[in-house]
């Protein structure tokens, strides 16, 4: 089975600032980490490889320094990695990003399964996973908390919902996004780290993945961010006064009025 895991290098959220002019994240001087949800996707891919055999390839779109994120994850036991990087990708929204990643997955070829974290902690959109599936016209499931079985071109999985979980069967090839309930990511091994240090990581540009320039970067991104702000937290409350009995009457009538029980 050939598995691709899409990962993203993100700024460490502990220290994020927004540029008030452009409304985008200021990345300079902010330490980068692997998007934490992607750790679960990588772990699950390695476990699937251990269960069913095959190979695990990591894929990311980003600037040259995103290679560090790939190396960190390679040390966990992935076989190899590809960095998709080109100046024309700058300013990509989720539509352009998922198109770009889908084109890279096409170029990799013969992929059975694509795994992503449920969302990235910088944008929090959770749109790229489904976007890739849409571009590839493959099956898709979000919020996967367990992969029960894979066989005969079909996978059985559990999708986490607010009120329980759905049991799904989806045909392969497919794209899934996973939640942290799916596993506990392992720590790297020394042999893995040494192997990861030496591995060649190919860099593919826009031309090499055969992408339509119109659908890349800013020109392929219809999203316009008009404003980013922190919503004001307003506390609304009233402290009842007077005799206890009167207060209780007031409370009961307010509850009835607001229809909250």
């Amino acid at each position, binding site marked *: 089975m050939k598995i691709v895991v899409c990962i993203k290098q993100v700024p460490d959220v502990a220290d994020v600032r927004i540029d008030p002019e452009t409304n985008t994240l200021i990345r300079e001087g902010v330490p980068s980490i692997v998007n934490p949800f992607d750790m679960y996707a990588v772990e699950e891919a390695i476990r699937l490889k251990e269960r069913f055999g095959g190979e695990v390839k990591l894929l990311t779109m980003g600037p040259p320094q995103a290679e560090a994120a790939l190396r960190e994850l390679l040390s966990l036991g992935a076989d190899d990695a590809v960095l998709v990087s080109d100046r024309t990708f700058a300013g990509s929204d989720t539509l352009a990003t998922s198109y770009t990643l889908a084109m890279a997955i096409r170029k990799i070829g013969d992929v059975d399964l694509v795994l992503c974290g449920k969302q990235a902690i910088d944008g929090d959109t959770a749109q790229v996973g489904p976007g890739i599936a849409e571009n590839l016209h493959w099956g898709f499931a979000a919020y996967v908390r367990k992969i029960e079985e894979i066989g005969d071109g079909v996978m059985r999985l559990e999708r986490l919902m607010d009120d329980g979980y759905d049991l799904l069967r989806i045909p392969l090839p497919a794209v899934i996004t996973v939640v942290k309930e799916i596993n506990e990511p392992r*720590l790297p*091994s*020394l042999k893995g780290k040494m192997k990861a*240090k030496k591995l060649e990581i190919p860099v593919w540009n826009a031309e090499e993945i055969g992408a339509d320039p119109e659908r890349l970067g800013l020109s392929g991104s219809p999203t316009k961010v008009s404003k980013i702000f922190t919503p004001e937290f307003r506390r609304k409350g009233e402290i009842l006064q007077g005799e206890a009995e009167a207060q209780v009457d007031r409370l009961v009538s307010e509850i009835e009025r607001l229809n909250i029980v």
Partner: protein
Amino acid sequence: MDYFLTEEQLMIRDLAAQIAREKVIPVRAELDEKEEFPSEIMKVLADSDMFGLYIPEEYGGMGGGILENCIAIEQLSRACIAVSVTFAASGLGCYPILLYGTEEQKKKYLPRIASGKSLAAFGLTEPNAGSDAGGIQTTAVKDGDSYILNGTKQWITNGGEADIYTVIAMTDRSRGARGASAFILEKGMEGFKFGKKEKKMGIRASATRELIFEDCRIPARNLLSREGMGFIVAMKTLDKSRPGIAAQGVGLAQGAIDEAAVYAKTRIQFGKPIAAQQAIQHMLADMTTQTEAARSLLYATCKFMDSNPKNFSKEAAMVKLFATDTAMKVTTDAVQVMGGYGYMREYPVEKMMRDAKILQIYEGTNQIQRNVIGLELVKEYTGKTEAVPVG
């Protein structure tokens, strides 16, 4: 201080520190309280390839030396020395095979130890043979192509938890220390049993048990080296493993400094952090200086030993002595800096001070280390009548 470690050594340090931070610190107080063996952490260390750091690659190890092993032990010890002794004792049990094993013995046992699939342990101490290892009473009697062992080993780290044991027993009591021999035993051999788990002052998560041999028959091919070499096997093993105990001391002292310094910065008395009081600053300054001195001696000794010198008993004894005396002093002072809070179990320095004491006792008491150093020193100066500087 930057010790100009290689990229590989930094990798080992960072990964060991990550394991300490993520897997040891969150559970160390509970493991101590419950006296629970750290099986989960040993599995993490195995999966991270840590057990094979000093074992040659041809036997499944990482091909490093004592320095690589000590870097890992130091980092683990910053978090908990009950965990790091469990890890390091496997190395102690392994060294006799690594140093004196035949090709067949090495092929059979080293890959299992390097992968962490099996823990190892070393059995030397007995109720009546501690510092005086010559007083061993466990016997091994040759019977055809077997040896039959009888006797009891005491206070064996990883006893009952390890699968592979290297044990010293007397094959010829009339010859004293020269009548001792070393053997490889495996858990599950008939007549090989374990005593109860000891209750200890510190390093309570580590397992310490008796090894009991009752007509325990083992194949003669499990003899290490030759008959009569047991005492030398034991002494050379201890020489190799002593820097590991020093690394425990350095790591533990650093862990105590980390706790005390953070506390001193945040504890306000007389209107300012106690770290601004000169009395506290001077204590922290001494603790840091002594610990850095111990670390410097540790790394220098490891590098020296990894260069395969002929004799390093003195150097190994000096670093064990200095680093562990430092750990006792620094952990005691960390408790003092933190005052009443330091004495409480809510804060980790209480455990650190309890744990530190064993470092001055095991793998040769610090008095025995001084004996070794003194003896070597006297040998070095034998025949010299003038103090002329050379080299």
